[in-house]
């Protein structure tokens, strides 16, 4: 049984089509990435999945059926638009939100001690939320998402507003939760986090799921679509190349799907005032794949 199964959902707001056709499934014990450019329909898809919006068509199954009040207690949600009650003490807010998820107050207090300790917020527990820094508030939001020990965790940009130390802490926590068998859906723009954390992903563009499957498999399928080279001269405006950037003395080229690296090498070799010291067909980074798929927006959906 999938923890979540989203099948062909569609949602429009008046004349605006927010989600055209999105499908994906999330398994137990995996971190699932939802990727896509701004306005692609990721947040709307999440809201449909969580029964905040009703879809125009399509089907959602959570924990093997329709979402009900009991199942909602087993979901932790860190929304994109986040906030807490500003004029209430941190401890009080977190316990209130946990009890709304069906947790009794005693258990909530006991668990809260551990989470506050892990996020280094114990000393701030009696402070009002508005007295905390933005980073502390972000950590408090993550505690609110996890305090009731949900089996399904949905996080929209979980690393936003965190410094590298705290981002590492959240990454470790997510890995712990995966090992504990939780299903985690993570919507993010940070491609290196996707590569480091996610088992599978769905890439949504203009309301469609355009890329879906195992991270390793997708990278393998896109092998040959990236070239790393060293040399001197002009490496821009090459036919079949959709993005070029310099990084640590190397030039990274993102190739359009179907583009032939040998043809690009041949073009470069013929350019005047251009010399090539190294030309390597590379495994693409997720950033390369993201750019390739989004810029080639008309590409047919690809299911891995």
């Amino acid at each position, binding site marked *: 049984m999938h923890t979540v199964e989203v099948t062909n959902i569609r949602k429009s*707001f008046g004349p605006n089509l927010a989600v055209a056709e999105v499908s994906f499934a999330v398994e137990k014990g995996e971190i699932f990435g939802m990727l896509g450019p701004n306005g692609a329909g990721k947040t709307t898809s999440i809201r449909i999945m969580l029964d905040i919006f009703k879809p125009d068509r399509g089907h959602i199954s959570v924990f093997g059926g329709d979402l009900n*009040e009991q199942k909602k207690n087993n979901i932790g*949600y860190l929304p994109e638009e*986040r906030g807490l*009650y500003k004029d209430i003490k941190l401890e009080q807010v977190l316990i209130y939100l946990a009890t*709304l998820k069906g947790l009794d107050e005693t258990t909530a207090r006991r668990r809260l001690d551990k989470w506050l300790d892990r996020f280094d917020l114990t000393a701030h527990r009696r402070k009002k939320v508005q007295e905390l820094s933005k980073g502390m508030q972000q950590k408090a939001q993550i505690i609110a998402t996890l305090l009731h020990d949900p089996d399904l965790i949905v996080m929209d940009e979980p690393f936003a507003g965190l410094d590298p130390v705290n981002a590492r802490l959240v990454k470790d926590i997510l890995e712990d939760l995966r090992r504990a068998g939780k299903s985690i859906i993570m919507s993010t723009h940070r491609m290196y986090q996707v590569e480091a954390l996610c088992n599978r992903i769905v890439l949504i563009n203009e309301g469609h799921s355009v890329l879906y499957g195992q991270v390793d498999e997708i990278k393998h399928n896109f092998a040959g679509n990236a070239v790393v080279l060293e040399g001197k001269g002009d490496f821009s405006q090459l036919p079949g190349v959709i993005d070029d950037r310099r990084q640590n003395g190397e030039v990274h080229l993102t190739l359009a799907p179907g583009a032939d690296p040998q043809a690009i090498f041949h073009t470069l070799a013929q350019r005047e005032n251009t010399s090539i010291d190294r030309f390597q067909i590379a495994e693409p980074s997720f950033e390369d794949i993201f750019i390739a798929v989004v810029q080639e927006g008309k590409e047919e959906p690809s299911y891995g």
Partner: protein
Amino acid sequence: MAKLWLVAKHEYFKRVQKRSFLLATFGLPLLITLSMAIAGLAIGSSLHKSIGYVDQAGIMAGMLGQSGGDNDFLAYPDEVSARAALEEGTIQAYYILPADYLHSRNLELYYWDEQPGRHVMEDFDQLLRTQLSDDLPESVRHRIMEGWYLKIIAADGSRSFDERTGFVSIMMPFIASMLFFFAVMAASGYLLQAVTDEKENRTVEILATSLTPGQLMSGKAIGLLAVALTQIAAWAISIAVALVIAAQIFEPLQGFQVPWGYFGIILLFFVPSYALAAGIMISIGSIVTDMQQGQQMASVVNMLFLAPMFVSTLMLSNPDSPILVAMTLFPTTALLTISLRWSMAVVPFWQLSLSWLLLVAASAVAIWASGRLFRMGMLRYGQRLNLRNILAAIRQSTTGFDVHEMKGQPDA
């Protein structure tokens, strides 16, 4: 504990712990007590000041050197000496009883800086009446001095008005209606804030995945009603204590009886009035983007509830006028109008029952519509709903936190 009660408890303690609540709840009775004390001191300071009189009519011959009530009245042989005493500050004012007083009834009162209060004038009146009725038998004289006690009774026996306690009977519903009114408006104002709070602080999406809109709004409404009742209880206890103390000093209060019938009727109207105000405030909170916009719209709505205060003179002169009957039946003005009319007239049973039915119907519609608007407006961060959105939200028939037919896109 059911989630509804968790929300109610959260809202209740969040409000009652605020400084502004403590100030409004305990500050108001304190302020009233203080102003009464200051007024008492002011009255006290004007007592025991001597008042002069010049008896040109020759009717106060036996009263020289006597005092009337709390005041000393000093006789002067002529106006020149009385005026000199006034200029020296020996007396606060002086009366002239002209020679033709018995025929003309004319009196003159001269003062310099401070006009004598009503209390002083009443004492002098008593002194004059005592002197004029001096030759009559004691029983007749006493009856003339005391006047009558009038009891007005409705023909159906449903209401009576005793003039001995009349003033208190009029004032009591007036004060109580103001308290109930402020409680309704304060609680619904808190509700407006509670709805906009969660839009402003962005907790609404977390709540949407934790409980239903019905649980959230009912919990808030119950919690804030409890806040209002706490406020009323604090005020009522303060008033009761003040009445018990005042009754020791102020004689008319000793005959005062608690108008239980009035309180019963008001309580019957209070709950649906609160529900109506709550429904309107939730709707406003859902439509607007922040508290400031909400307050602007709420101030217009408050006028609809406060309207009976603007015709309070009509309450005194003609409590059964068609305007007041219309205001009795109109849902937003029913509570205050009935409360104010209660002490002046018998409000017919048909008006009470029809008004209550209309009020209950209006509050049910307001709560129903507010639930729909809340669902629609909750995710519209920074966007105000227009009339088309509002009508679409009210027409839609879906459940949950859906914004299915919403025109225009929420934040993606």
